[in-house]
């Protein structure tokens, strides 16, 4: 396929997704949740919560991960990807907020937790954190706009107060990324033992960090493709190594927890839970093993494939916790309605579209000084790839 054809294909697909979603939106708000979802009294949360909110917030975790790496830990070599990560995070949180409007029965009351307090509620805490963190992300994103508009003075003022803002952002993220796991702590008998754990907040936090890194690699690859930019390859390789270690930590913790709770025995039980569990572990374990191999890290395509596999594994875990792991105890079988799938697809497509547009018009990818490298280093030339991997 030529580039022009490919471009038409994606635009056409995007248009179709948006038109269908527009109708789904009408169905949702005119006829209500009953007509637009397969949710029920037995199964009150579906993919709008499980994917759009839970995965959405996780997939936007690159913002705080990279902000901490670059601005707190002062690892300058990561500088080239901090802006794309912050942009993704900002767009991600905005999309989560939009998706929440579809799911809430009375979306116009979304601000209620700000004045009607219940500090015992995890959801209350998440609501506050997400509201505050979206504001923090706006401030972290603002320099890109100010730079574009040439507002030097405002830019300098903002830069002077950026450190506390960034620290606040990392703390707020730590709180709500983990609290999204705490949401399910109230379900000790409803959630399947393969997923219910007192460690859920920690597991959600660590997997969010891994996903933040994975999304940053994912974007680097896509923006390299889309804008014909040179991939920050040594940087991507470095992130891949870190990602491998974070996944290893996560999986070790996951299995220790399953072992100590005696939950591994439930793998003998019939039912599809064990297969979904297997899928989740394979989708995380395989990329981890791939990333530990040097051959993979020398090949941008292989890194991309591994990253996508890991992201799918992450999504599988969150959906297992929030949707499929709750089915057995609910007594009903939930399959999302076309309207639910349509809105979710539209969120993803819209995310890609806005990111691309913003990256096109704003100085997201700064002209960083780094060694020019070919977009796809040839595998045969291992010595050269080696020197790239080592070099900063």
């Amino acid at each position, binding site marked *: 396929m030529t580039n022009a054809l490919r471009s038409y294909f994606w635009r056409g697909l995007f248009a179709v997704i948006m038109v269908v979603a527009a109708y789904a939106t009408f169905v949702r708000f005119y006829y209500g949740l009953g007509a637009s979802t397969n949710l029920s*009294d037995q199964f009150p949360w579906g993919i709008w919560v499980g994917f759009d909110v839970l995965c959405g917030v996780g997939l936007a975790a690159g913002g705080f991960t990279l902000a901490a790496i670059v601005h*707190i830990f*002062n690892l300058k070599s990561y500088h080239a990807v901090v802006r794309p990560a912050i942009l993704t995070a900002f767009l991600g949180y905005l999309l989560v907020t939009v998706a929440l409007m579809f799911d809430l029965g009375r979306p116009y*009351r979304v601000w209620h937790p700000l004045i009607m307090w*219940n500090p015992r*509620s*995890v959801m209350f*805490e998440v609501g506050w954190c997400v509201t505050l963190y979206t504001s923090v992300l706006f401030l972290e994103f603002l320099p890109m706009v100010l730079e574009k508009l040439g507002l030097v003075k405002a830019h300098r003022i903002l830069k002077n107060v950026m450190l506390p803002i960034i620290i606040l952002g990392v703390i707020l993220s730590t709180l709500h990324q983990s609290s999204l796991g705490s949401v399910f702590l*109230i379900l000790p008998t409803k959630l399947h033992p393969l997923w219910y754990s*007192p460690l859920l907040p920690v597991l959600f936090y660590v997997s969010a960090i891994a996903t933040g890194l994975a999304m940053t690699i994912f974007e680097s690859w896509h923006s390299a493709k889309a804008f014909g930019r040179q991939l920050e390859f040594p940087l991507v390789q470095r992130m891949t190594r870190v990602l491998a270690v974070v996944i290893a930590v996560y999986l070790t913790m996951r299995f220790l927890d399953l072992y100590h709770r005696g939950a591994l025995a439930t793998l003998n039980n019939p039912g599809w839970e064990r297969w979904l569990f297997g899928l989740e572990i394979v989708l995380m374990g395989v990329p981890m093993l791939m990333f530990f191999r040097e051959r993979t890290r020398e090949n941008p395509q292989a890194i991309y494939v591994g990253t996508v596999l890991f992201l799918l594994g992450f999504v599988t875990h969150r959906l297992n916790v929030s949707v499929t792991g709750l089915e057995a105890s609910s007594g009903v079988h939930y399959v999302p309605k076309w309207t639910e799938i349509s809105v979710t697809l539209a969120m993803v497509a819209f995310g890609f579209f806005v990111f691309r547009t913003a990256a096109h018009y704003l100085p997201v990818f700064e002209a960083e000084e780094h060694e020019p490298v070919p977009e796809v280093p040839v595998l045969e030339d291992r010595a050269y790839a080696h020197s790239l991997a080592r070099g900063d």
Partner: protein
Amino acid sequence: MSKAILYDSTLCVGCRQCEEACSTRWKLPYNEKIAAEEKISSHKLTTIRTFGEKFSRKLCMHCQDPACASVCPVAALQKTAAGPVVYDEDRCMGCRYCMVACPFQVPTYEWEARLPKVRKCDMCSDRVPGGGVTRCSEACGYGATITGNRDELIAEARKRIAEKPKEYHPKIYGVEEVGGTSVLVLSSVPFEQIGYNTKVIKSALPALTWNALQHVPDVVVMGSVLMGGIHWISHRKEAVARKEGRS
């Protein structure tokens, strides 16, 4: 003094007078078709369920420390001192976390409404705190459902079990379940045989989330110190180099 409902399923004949009285109190339609629906929903807040020759009743259990009230981000659900767990529809934004969290699958939703609200039994909170009895207790001609003080009803239930040990399963459902509920149930057979969830834990659920949530202030303080410290160390090298004119 906390109020409660005692439902003695051995006395229940399945006449569904409680269902009808409840529907009248909520101004909900009630007819034969609805009577035949043996599940609670937004238009039927209590139901009789048939298990062969035996009957059981489903309604909000009014937990002593309810999961629904603890998870609600806007405090729309509250456990009142008098016993009832009540719902304030003006606060509710429709996140449905209460429905997910309830160990008994009690709160229901008006799925068909454009601006839906949660529906559940409120133990006639317009009457019970003032010493009155619930509509379902009033309507029951067989004494299967009665309203009273919780500890007196527990004593009464124990007395019934002691007097007729052959007719009763020796346990009272609701004394220990999720740390205790304000609806108590007696049965002639183990409770799971007439549709009660006996797998629920024996302590209050909100403690499980509080275990995690209580650390929030500490995370904020520790996180600030830790990150401020790391920032200081990681940037100091640079600052020193700059001062010494090395960069």
